[in-house]
C-alpha cells in the first residue's frame, strides 16, 4: 500500500491498540543497586526539605554511606547469584545489561563513591568559621562570592548538605551508564550523572570564581559533547532502525536488513553507521578525557572542590570506559577494522600529549589531571585489544587506578595554607621534612601512577600492555612504555620536591584530618599495595567478569 495509507494505519493502530501493547516487565531485583542508590538520593532530597539544619549533615552522611553500602551489597549479591557469569542477561526490556563487566564496574563505582563520601564529609580541615566546623563546599551556592548574602550564610553556619543527594544522583547515573544496553539509556544515563557533576563543580567554599568558571566550562563543553553523542545516536538509529545494541549489532553484522527500502536506496551505504559511530565515540571519549577531547579536564579538575575532583577523576573514568567498552565490544565489533586504527591514533596521541604536557605543570591538581589523561591513553591501549583479556585488563586497571586517584586527591586536601589548599607545587617543597608520613603516602600514590613494580599501577599497566601486545598492538605498547618513561619524570619531580628540597619558610602546613579522610587515604594505600603484591584474586575477578552479554 501507499506511504500515506501506511502512516495512517499507523495512527489508527495506535489508537485502538492499548491491549496489544505488552506491559513492560522489569527485573527490579537485578536493577536493585541502581534503584537503591537513586532511592537514597530521593530520601536525601526529602531530608534536605524537612529536617532541621543541624541534623542534616549527620543524617545525609549516614544516609549516603548506607545507601552506597547497600548498593554495593546488592551488587555482591547479584555477582554471587551468578548474574556476572552464567545468568548474565539483558534486563528491563533490553534497556540494561546485567553481566560481568556491568557488575564489576558498578561495584567499583559504588566503592569509589563510598570513599568519596568520606572526603565529602570531612569537616576538620578548614578552620572553624563562627564556631562551626565547615567542609570544603560553599555555604550557599547561590550567594554571590564575597557578597553580603554569603557573609550572612557563613555567619548562620549554612552548609550545602545537598551535595550528598547530588552525589547519589550522579552515582545512580554512573551505575546505569556502563550497563546501558541501548543508546537511549546510554544518553539518559550520561545526562543523569553529568548534570549533578556540573553542579558539584560550582560549589567550592574557597576560590569560588575558579569553581564557577570550572562549572561553566564543564557544562558548556559537556552539553556540546552530549549533542554530538545524541546526533550520533540519531544517525545510528537511522542506520539500524533501532537503538538497542543487539539490534544494531545484528544490522552491522548483516544478519538483519534494515526495514525500509526507501531509506536503503538513499542512505543504504554505511555512511550513517560510520559517522554515527564516530560521533557516539566522540561523546564517550570526551567523558574519558581522551585527546583531543581532553581540554576541559585540567581546568575542571583544578577549579572543582578537591573531593569532587577526586570523585570525578575516579568514578567518571570508570563509568565512561565501561560504556565505551560495551559500545565497542557489543555494538561495533563487526566494524572493528574501521574503528581500531582510529582508536590507535587516539590512544597514542592521548598517551603522548598527557605525559608531555604534564612535565611542565606547576599545580598539583593540574598535574594529576594531565596524568589522568595519560592514563586514559594507557587504558585505551587495553580497550583496543579486542579480546576478553583486553576487557578484564581494562576492568582491573580501572579499579586500581580509581583508588590511587582518590587517595592522591585526598592527600591534596590535607596540604593547606592561609588560602585553603596549597596546590602550587612550589609550596610542597620539603613536605617530607615537615610531615614524612603524608609525603610518604603521596609518594606511594605517585609511584603507583608511575607504574613502579610492587604497586597496583604496575600490575594494571602490565596487564593492559600485555593484552595490547597479544592483540597485536606492539607499536602501541612501545609508545606507551616510552610515554610512561616521560610520565615517570614528573612524578619523580614531585617526590624530589617533597623530600630533597629545603622546606620554605612560609610553606603550607599539613592539617590533621578526621577519621573520614584518614580512612579514605588508608583504603587507597591498602588497595594500591595489595593489588601490587597479590593481585591474583582481583585479576581472576576481572577475568571472570570479562564477557559481555548481548
Amino acid at each position, binding site marked *: 500500500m501507499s506511504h500515506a495509507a501506511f502512516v495512517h494505519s499507523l495512527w489508527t493502530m495506535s489508537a485502538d491498540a492499548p491491549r496489544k501493547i505488552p506491559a513492560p516487565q522489569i527485573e527490579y531485583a537485578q536493577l536493585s543497586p541502581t534503584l537503591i542508590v537513586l532511592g537514597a538520593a530521593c530520601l536525601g532530597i526529602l531530608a534536605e526539605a524537612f529536617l532541621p539544619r543541624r541534623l542534616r549533615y549527620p543524617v545525609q552522611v549516614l544516609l549516603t554511606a548506607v545507601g552506597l553500602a547497600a548498593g554495593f551489597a546488592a551488587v555482591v549479591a547479584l555477582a554471587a547469584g551468578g548474574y556476572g557469569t552464567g545468568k548474565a542477561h539483558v534486563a528491563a526490556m533490553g534497556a540494561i545489561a546485567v553481566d560481568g563487566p556491568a557488575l564489576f564496574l558498578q561495584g567499583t563505582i559504588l566503592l569509589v563513591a563510598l570513599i568519596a563520601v568520606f572526603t565529602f564529609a570531612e569537616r576538620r580541615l578548614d578552620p572553624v568559621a563562627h564556631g562551626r566546623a565547615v567542609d570544603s563546599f560553599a555555604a550557599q551556592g547561590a550567594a554571590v562570592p564575597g557578597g553580603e548574602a554569603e557573609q550572612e550564610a557563613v555567619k548562620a553556619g549554612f552548609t550545602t548538605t545537598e551535595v550528598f543527594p547530588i552525589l547519589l544522583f550522579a552515582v545512580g547515573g554512573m551505575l546505569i551508564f556502563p550497563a546501558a544496553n541501548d543508546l537511549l539509556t546510554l544518553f539518559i544515563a550520561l545526562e543523569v550523572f553529568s548534570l549533578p557533576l556540573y553542579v558539584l563543580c560550582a560549589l567550592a567554599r574557597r576560590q569560588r570564581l575558579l569553581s564557577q568558571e570550572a562549572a561553566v566550562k564543564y557544562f558548556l563543553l559537556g552539553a556540546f559533547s552530549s549533542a554530538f553523542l545524541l546526533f550520533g545516536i540519531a544517525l545510528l538509529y537511522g542506520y539500524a532502525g533501532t537503538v538497542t545494541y543487539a539490534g544494531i549489532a545484528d544490522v552491522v553484522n548483516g544478519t538483519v536488513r534494515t526495514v525500509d527500502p526507501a531509506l536503503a536506496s538513499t542512505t543504504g551505504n554505511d555512511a550513517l553507521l560510520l559517522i554515527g559511530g564516530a560521533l557516539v565515540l566522540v561523546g564517550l571519549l570526551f567523558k574519558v578525557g581522551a585527546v583531543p577531547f581532553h581540554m576541559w579536564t585540567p581546568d575542571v579538575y583544578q577549579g572543582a572542590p578537591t573531593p569532587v575532583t577526586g570523585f570525578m577523576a575516579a568514578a567518571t573514568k570508570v563509568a565512561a570506559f565501561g560504556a565505551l567498552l560495551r559500545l565497542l565490544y557489543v555494538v561495533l565489533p563487526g566494524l572493528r577494522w574501521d574503528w581500531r586504527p582510529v582508536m590507535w591514533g587516539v590512544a597514542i596521541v592521548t598517551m603522548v600529549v598527557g605525559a608531555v604536557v604534564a612535565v611542565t605543570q606547576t599545580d598539583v591538581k593540574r598535574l594529576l589531571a594531565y596524568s589522568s589523561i595519560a592514563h586514559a591513553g594507557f587504558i585505551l591501549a587495553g580497550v583496543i585489544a579486542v579480546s576478553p583479556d583486553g576487557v*578484564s585488563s581494562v576492568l582491573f586497571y580501572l579499579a586500581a587506578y580509581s583508588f590511587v586517584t582518590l587517595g592522591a586527591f585526598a592527600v591534596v586536601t590535607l596540604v593547606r595554607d592561609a588560602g585553603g589548599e596549597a596546590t602550587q607545587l612550589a609550596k610542597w617543597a620539603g613536605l617530607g*621534612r615537615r*610531615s*614524612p*608520613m603524608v609525603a610518604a603516602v603521596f609518594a606511594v600514590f605517585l*609511584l603507583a601512577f*608511575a607504574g*613502579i*613494580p*610492587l604497586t597496583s599501577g*604496575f*600490575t594494571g599497566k*602490565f*596487564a593492559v*600492555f*600485555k593484552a595490547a*601486545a*597479544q592483540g597485536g598492538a*606492539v607499536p602501541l*605498547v*612501545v609508545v606507551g*612504555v*616510552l610515554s*610512561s*618513561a616521560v610520565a*615517570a*619524570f614528573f612524578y*619523580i*619531580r614531585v617526590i*624530589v620536591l617533597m*623530600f*630533597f*628540597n*629545603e622546606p620554605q619558610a612560609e610553606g603550607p602546613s599539613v592539617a590533621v584530618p578526621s577519621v573520614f579522610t584518614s580512612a579514605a587515604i588508608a583504603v587507597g594505600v591498602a588497595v594500591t599495595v595489595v593489588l601490587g603484591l597479590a*593481585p*591474583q584474586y582481583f*585479576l*581472576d575477578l576481572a*577475568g571472570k567478569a570479562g564477557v559481555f552479554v548481548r
Partner: protein
Amino acid sequence: MSFPLLTVTAAVPAAGAVATAAVPAARRAAAKWLALAFSLATLVLAAVQLARFDPDSGKPFQLTESHAWIKSFGVRYDLGVDGIAVVLIALTALLVPFVILAGWHDADPLEEAEPNRRWRPTQGFFALILLVEAMVVISFEATDVFLFYIFFEAMLIPVYFLVGGFGDRAGARSEEETAARRSYAAVKFLLYNLAGGLIMMAAVIGLYAVTAHQLGTGTFSLTEIVQARADGRLQFATVTERALFLGFFFAFAVKAPLWPLHTWLPGAMGEATAPVAVLITAVVDKVGTFAMLRFCLQLFPEASKWATPVIVVLSVIGILYGALLAVAQKDIKRLIAYASISHFGFIVLGIFAMTTQGQGGATLYMVNHGISTAALMLVAGFLISRRGSRLIADYGGVQKVAPVLAGTFMVGGLATLSLPGLAPFVSEFLVLVGTFSRYPAAGIVATLGIVLAALYVLVLYQRTMTGPVKDEVRGMPDLRVRELVVVGPLIALLLFLGVYPKPLTKIIDPAVGHTMSQVHRTDPKPDVPANDVEAAK
C-alpha cells in the same frame, strides 16, 4: 617442603628494614646496631647457602622454591641459585655490613637541624640500605623473568632515596647547590634506569606474548623456556628474538653501565656518600651484568651471538674511555666512578667473549671488583670525611700524617690496577685471555687498559698521599678502630682471593659451563695442545 632458605635470605634484610625504620627518632644508635645485626644475620644465611650449594650436582639451579603467584600473567614465585648467583649473593651479604659500618655517621642529623619527632633520617638511611640488600638478593635468586624484573625495577626507588636524600656532606660549595646537584644526580640515575627498565618491560611483555602464542600458556619461567627451546616446542623468529634481546640488554647495559650509557654513574657516585656509592657500584650494578649472563644469554642465545661483535667493541671502548676519563678527573669519587666504568667494560667483555675463561673471569671479576671498589671507595670516603673536600688538589702528603690510611688506600689502588697477588688480577687476566682467544684484536686493545689503570691510580695516589704535607691535612687523624674494622677484612679478602681463588672458581666453573652450553659455544682449541701431549706421556 624443605626450609625456604632463599626466601628467608631475602626476607631477613627486608624485615630488618622495617624494624630499623620503626626505631623511634631518639634511639639512633639502636637503629644502627639493629641494622648491623640484621645484615650480619643475612651474611650467615648467605654462608649457609654457600655451604648447602653443591657445585658438582648436574642441576642448573639448586635450593629451588616454586609457588604460583600471578596465574593470569603466568608468573611464578620461582627461586633458585646457580654457582654464579650464590657467589654474588655471598658478595652482597658480605659487603652490606661493611657499608653499614662505614656509613655509621653519614646519616646523623646535622646540629642545626630542628628537633622533629617524625623526621628520622638515620633510621631511614639504614632501613633503605637493608631494603636494597633484600631486593638485590631476591633478584639474584629469581629464576622467573617477571619476578626478577619486578625487583630489578623496584630496587631503583630505595637507591634513589639513598642517593638523593643522603648526599655527600663534603660538598665543595654552598648547601643549596650541593642539594641541587645531588637531587639532579639522583633523578638522572632514576630516570636513566627507569627508561631502561620500561623498555625491558616491553620486551618482557613481548616474551610473554611469544610464549603464550607458541606454548598455549604464557610463561616467564627461565627453566621452562630454555627447556621448550631445547625440545623445539618454542622457536623465536629471528627478528623477534633480536628485538627482545635488545630490550633486555638495554636495561642491563644501563645498569651495568656500559659505554655510552654510563653518564649517570659518575654523578650518582660523586654525590652519594661513599658507602652508598659502594652499594651502587659493588652490589646494585652487578645485577645488570649478572642478568646479562643469566637472562640475555640463556633466553636469546642466537641473538646474543648476533650482537656479540658490537657489544665487544662497546665494552672495549668503555674500558679505555673510562680509564682515560678517570685520569682527567679532579674529584676523587668521580675518578673512582670512571675507573668502575672501565672495569664494567672488562666484565661485559668477558661475558660476551663466550669463552669459559671470559665468563668465569667476568663472574669472578664481579666479586673482586665489588671488594676492591669497596676498599678503595670506603677509604676515600674516610679521607674525604676528614678533609671535607672531594677535590684531589686539596690533598697532599697525607701518608706523612696518616700512614695507615695511606697504606690501605694504596692497597685498594693496587687492587684497582689489578696487581698480581691481589684478587682482581686473576679475574682481569682471565677475561683478557678469554677475550684474546676469540677476539685477539679486542684482547690486545683491552690490555692497554692495565697501563691506563696504573696511570690513574698512581696519579691519584701521588697527588693525594705523597709530596710535602699540605697545611689543611696537617693533624689529620689516622684510621679509627671502626674504620680499620671496615677496611682490614676487605684487604685480607683481596689478598686471599688473589692467592687462592679456587674456592670461588670451583663453584663458578660448572655454572659457566652450563651457560656456555646454553649458548652452544665451546672454547677455541689451541694450535699445539701441548698440555694434552704432556698428559699423554
